[in-house]
């Protein structure tokens, strides 16, 4: 093991994990306000395809990411409208959003499949992903606005009684979540694997969702969880390439098993899950009750 090899592994881990951090932290903010959005995968795909299309048409990376984030805002805005104003079930609506996103992205991207583009260096986004986790953490625990957001997620009736606009705060949280998911998607199609392919996020949205629970709704732990997941994935590849004799399947599934184990550990303790999960998660808010 020399230094170059280890630095190389570290680079690959950083590049591979960044989309999980973006999507995970976005979803965390949404859930902290008391809304569960299962549409992460769909929003990531729409974000990925819109960034790719705009880049092909305009050649501008800035516009690509800008439009991508806009697409995330539109997708999550649709979700927010349905669950906040029409009181639709959050789980069903979120799933529908994912299915919609998969179909929409395939349709939009049909003629762009296999268009070669120049990928963008990932490092700005890698650094930005760390920054955003610490900003969110600061926002939650050091600012009044963050406290209010958490209060809305814990008990929307109390927050409402204190005069805070539950709907407005949740709306903004959902939009933030959507834009982060879209950013994760555009990172994948522009930096990580510069191409557009249908369904190219390959389940990372679902992993991001699991990460939020894994992190017991704490921002820094999303970062830790994401890096455990990404680290184990890349580590097992390295062990394989070194020619070690070990069951490759086991290590391929190891990150998923680890996630499930932590989920089991967390949810087996009722008190712990009560203490960490936002108390109003998935409960719709009816004004005037």
């Amino acid at each position: 093991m020399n230094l170059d090899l280890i630095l190389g592994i570290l680079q690959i881990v950083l590049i591979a994990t960044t989309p999980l951090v973006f999507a995970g932290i976005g979803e965390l903010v949404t859930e902290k306000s008391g809304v569960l959005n299962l549409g992460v995968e769909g929003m990531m795909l729409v974000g990925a395809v819109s960034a790719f299309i705009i880049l092909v048409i305009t050649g501008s990376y800035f516009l690509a990411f800008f439009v991508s984030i806009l697409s995330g805002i539109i997708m999550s805005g649709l979700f927010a409208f349905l669950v906040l104003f029409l009181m639709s079930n959050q789980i069903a609506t979120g799933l529908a959003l994912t299915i919609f996103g998969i179909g929409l992205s395939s349709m939009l991207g049909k003629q762009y499949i296999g268009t070669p583009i120049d990928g963008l260096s990932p490092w700005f986004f890698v650094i930005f992903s760390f920054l955003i986790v610490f900003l969110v953490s600061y926002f939650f625990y050091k600012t009044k606005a963050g406290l209010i957001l958490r209060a809305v997620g814990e008990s929307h009736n109390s927050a409402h009684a204190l005069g805070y606009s539950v709907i407005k705060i949740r709306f903004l949280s959902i939009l933030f979540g959507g834009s982060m998911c879209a950013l994760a998607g555009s990172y994948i199609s522009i930096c990580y694997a510069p191409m557009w392919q249908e369904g190219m996020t390959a389940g990372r949205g679902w992993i991001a969702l699991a990460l939020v629970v894994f992190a017991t709704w704490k921002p820094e732990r999303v970062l830790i969880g994401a890096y455990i997941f990404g680290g184990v994935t890349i580590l097992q590849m390295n062990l394989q390439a070194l020619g070690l004799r070990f069951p490759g399947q086991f290590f391929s599934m190891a990150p998923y098993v680890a996630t499930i184990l932590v989920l089991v550990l967390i949810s087996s303790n009722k008190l712990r899950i009560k203490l960490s999960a936002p108390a109003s998660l998935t409960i719709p808010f009816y004004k005037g009750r």
Partner: protein
Amino acid sequence: MIRIITYLSTFLVFAFGSAYADPKKVGFIYIGPPGDHGWTYMHDVGRKYMESQLGDSITTTYLENIPENADAVRAIRKLADSGHDLIFTTSFNYMDQTHEVAKDFPDIKFEHATGYIQADNVATYSARFYEGRMIEGHIAGHMTETNTIGYIASFPIPEVVRGINAFYLAASKVNPDIKMKIIWVFTWYDPGKEADAANTLINQGADIIVQHTDTYAPCQAAQKAGVYAFGQASNQEEFCPDAHLTSIEDIWGPYYAERAKAVVDGTWSSGDTWDGMDKGMVVMSPYNTKLMPASLIQEAVNMEVGIKDGTIHPFTGPIYNQAGELVVPEGEVAPDGMLLGMNFYVQGIDGEVPQ
């Protein structure tokens, strides 16, 4: 009034419909999207070729992104239920699902790609991709400077293991010092993961990337890192012009057209087809003249000729397994049965096939 229109239109449909022979319906089950520019893409090219050859006598449909699990049963059954006459299931792990549905629909013909179990209404077909792997191995043996080859493998099935062995046998023949680094990613399709695997192999010193997965992400990663790569299933040169040496192309069109024609004519019968370069089912993409010396390209072309006329076989003895046992004696070639069930590495490859 509405009732009259309904009757009338029904009558018209039957009147005109019966004026033509019913076109045969041909369905395809795809593991990925047709746009992967790899495995599924080439099946779709084959489907379109079949359409162009048979014109109005057939109509085709396809279902894409069908996972290799119980979902596949539903997808295949959906095609069977909707009156398809011939159904191609285009991935190895659709095997059990294909047979499960085929049992219930004895009048429908099924064709299972890369499988090895036939039934009265289930034929199997595959291409001898390992012939192309041999040529890639030969090229890699000459082109590598670090003597390290990175190989991205998908699932430990004979098809993939055979490719690894054919590649290594040819590569180690020209360069006995060659080392293979193999990563099993346990997916056919995940651009991110494929890129991770490629970067990991490059980081560990590989200067040639070989892939048995479906997207061009590994080739792109090689291009970025300044090493060489072989594409997969279709010509991927436009995505990585400075890395791409050649690709093995799968040419399914003529086979699909022939089989669909047999269904139209009523002459279809089950069987097993395993064609290679001689029948044009396996084709090498144009060799990259910018990267490869002309003499090496000539050697590769000569090799193609030898494979086509049968004087060269990638699995010519003596071949030993990892335990040092002679599996193919000197002067003989491995029988198709051994190749079809190949689940061991040949001597010289480190690690073991995941079981």
